């Protein structure tokens, strides 16, 4: 248990640092704004209680808001994703299997389910984030393009983070 808290604190710090000091500094284009810190919520253990996931999402969202200087949109998006995570897992994977232990990974869930799971989380998160940031329908197409391109980029990076994170861990955690 202690060990798990340590590794997840490290993951929290790593996603936060990557987001703030790498991805927020890329400044390549307004259409390319990957939000990779959602990986933290995605990789919480399968048997974590819904309330723990929710609070973890809150912590991650508030930390990102503070670091990025965004007044709440990270929190809104991340808390929503954290709330929906158990439901999404249940729908994609089956409620009974979810109760067992383990970190979400291609090995644990099957590659197809795992990818669908990541797509669902990242897309929900990005849709909420970018539509709240735009707050108008006047550039709906433009916002949609931002969502699609940034989600695709985030998905790639979240996948990478997931591979690295699960590779470092012993088989049973």
């Amino acid at each position, binding site marked *: 248990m202690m060990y798990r808290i340590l590794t997840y604190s490290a993951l929290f710090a790593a996603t936060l640092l990557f987001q*703030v*000091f790498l991805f*927020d*500094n*890329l*400044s*390549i*284009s*307004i*259409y*390319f*704004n990957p939000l990779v810190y959602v990986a933290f919520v995605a990789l919480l253990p399968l048997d974590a209680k*819904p*309330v723990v996931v*929710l609070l973890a999402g*809150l912590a991650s*969202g508030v930390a990102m*808001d*503070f*670091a*990025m*200087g*965004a*007044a*709440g*949109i990270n*929190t*809104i998006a991340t*808390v*929503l994703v954290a*709330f929906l995570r158990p439901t999404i897992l249940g729908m994609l994977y089956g409620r009974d299997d979810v109760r067992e232990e383990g970190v979400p990974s291609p090995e644990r869930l099957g590659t197809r389910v795992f990818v669908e799971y990541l797509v669902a989380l990242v897309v929900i998160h990005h849709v909420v984030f970018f539509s*709240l*940031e*735009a707050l108008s329908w006047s*550039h709906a197409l*433009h916002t949609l393009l931002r969502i699609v391109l940034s989600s695709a980029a985030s998905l790639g990076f979240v996948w990478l983070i997931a591979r690295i994170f699960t590779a470092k861990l012993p088989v049973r955690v």
Partner: protein
Amino acid sequence: MRKLLEFIRSIYVVVLFVVLEVAAVSYYARSSYYTEARLLARSNRVAGGVRSFFGGIRRYFMLGRENRALIARVAELEEQLARYDEAENAARLDAYLSDIGESKYHFAAATVVSNTVNRAQNLLTLNRGRADGVVEEMAVLSPDGAMVGYVVDCTDRYSVAMSALNTSFRASGRLVGTDYVGSIYWDGTDQHVVLMGDVSKYADPQPGQEVVTTGFSQFFPEDVLIGLVESATLNETRTAYTVRVRLAAEISRQTDVVLVCNRDLWEIRDLQQSEQVEQYTRQD
């Protein structure tokens, strides 16, 4: 009683979720660009050093470009100096000129430690703060004197400026060679282009024409270069042009900026808000 407890147990995650989301949404709804600048200024207390480190790396890769710009600037100033030398001779004859005192504008230089262009509300963090004489509402210009943004919040050692690439940014612009003015704003789409709205239909802006600031906005000195006209479209009622202006300063590549403060700004503002002036503007 046990039923009730069980019921609460089954829905407390939902309740917690709703409470958190309502709190976050209401905080976001009451926020403004100013809240965001303030948050970023606070987080700089913690992360300012690390941001400076990454800013330093970025800076290193831009040294060559910066050097060329500086050399060009030196050449330009040398030319001006030569012109002043000539003028000095003429001025010596005219020795009765009264002392005009110190310039109305105060200049300072700062380094950009963090800068985004990929959000709708883009902010620049600068490594100069109140301790260095930076105050809110100072204009931020690129080293070659083009408009970048203005300072919205400072701590002792850092300040946060709103760049022109911020949907809350407002300034006023004028087409060079004419008296036609318009309001400058960003629509959040292209990081190289801002819009100038409400330009008179008689203005007839030509591509390549320069757009400069007016003295109206108070943040910026007069005649600071904003950019070049790219294209212009008449609005549906054919009463005004919306002009696309290609920014002269490439905001994503700014590493050093010049801060300009209008020393008279507060004096002018105090004067405008003085009771005596108000007496004459009050509607009875």
